[in-house]
């Protein structure tokens, strides 16, 4: 039996802001079932069709507030999916890579050089090296944290999602440095121990970013950023 047009219109109106097709289908089926069952019960109790319709609409609630409820519920449902998580981790990592390269270019533009003059050489200058390393970590990873915080806002495991995404990006950065070193030193990436030994010996552009200290500090930085941003979100969520 097909549903009356007013039911279809009412339900479609409520789901106007729901842009995920599978959630839309599911919510529409449930709402249609509910509305039609309530309508049939009221008609069976002796209500005139028009009265029953008005009663159903009153009991269901206002379209505006329901539209908002469904939009928020859709965000919760969609962001809890694994596919959504992986897609946004990849997008976030790509954005971070762009910011990373941009930061590198800006530092170079500001006069920081590896070891050549004129400019501020970072090798043999601990302060400049620290500043360079801090900027290279905080700017892209800070941007990544903001992005992941926004897209994982509705996830129950927000802190874990942000932290794991940042650690994935961190591992990606290390892999990229390894790849770059492999090209610089002409040592295949598959000969990993030999490559790491060569990088550790220093003397080239990637050496400062592959020390045990830098690796550990950035890894801890990712965990701290992830936990803190997730925690802050939960606090503000409780307030609202």
């Amino acid at each position: 039996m097909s549903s009356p047009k007013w039911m279809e219109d009412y339900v479609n109106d409520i789901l106007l802001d729901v842009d995920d097709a599978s959630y839309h289908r599911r919510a529409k089926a449930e709402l249609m079932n509910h509305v039609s069952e309530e309508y049939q019960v009221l008609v069976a109790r002796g209500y005139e069709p028009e009265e029953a319709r008005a009663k159903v609409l009153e009991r269901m609630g206002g379209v505006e507030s329901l539209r908002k409820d469904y939009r928020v519920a859709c965000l919760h449902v969609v962001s809890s999916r694994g596919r959504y998580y992986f897609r946004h981790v990849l997008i976030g990592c790509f954005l971070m890579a762009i910011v990373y390269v941009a930061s590198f270019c800006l530092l170079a533009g500001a006069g920081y050089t590896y070891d050549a003059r004129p400019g501020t050489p970072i090798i043999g200058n601990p302060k400049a090296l620290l500043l360079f390393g801090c900027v290279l970590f905080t700017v892209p990873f800070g941007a990544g944290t903001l992005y992941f915080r926004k897209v994982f806002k509705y996830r129950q495991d927000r802190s874990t999602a942000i932290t794991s995404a940042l650690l994935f990006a961190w591992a990606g950065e290390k892999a990229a440095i390894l790849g770059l070193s492999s090209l610089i030193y002409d040592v295949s990436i598959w000969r990993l121990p030999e490559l790491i030994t060569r990088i550790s010996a220093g003397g080239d552009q990637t050496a400062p970013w592959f020390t045990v200290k830098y690796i550990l500090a950035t890894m801890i930085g990712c965990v701290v950023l992830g936990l803190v941003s997730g925690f802050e979100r939960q606090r503000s969520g409780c307030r609202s």
Partner: protein
Amino acid sequence: MRVNKELSKGTHEIIILELLSRKDMHGYELVQEMELLSDKAFSMSQGSLYPLLHVMESKRYIDSYEETVNGRKRRCYTLTDKGRSVLAEKKNQWKVLVNAMERILGRELGEQS
């Protein structure tokens, strides 16, 4: 008498968890049970039940499955193990709250009854 909307807002989740701990239900049945057991004190706008159920499902408190009754497809909701432990925790919090409110309003409530 209907409870003030703001006051009852935080109660819907625990009521749904409690009802689903008794048996699996679909949305329409949940609304009816909620109204019946609370003598309509805890009724909510029926349309806003489903977004709440969907959010609870995304938090893994409840799960759902489809079944066909009288040729009509329906989505039934069931409580998960996580939902069961959340319910136990929420019940404990409610006990603390109710006891505290009774201590504060006890005399006044006694006078009214």
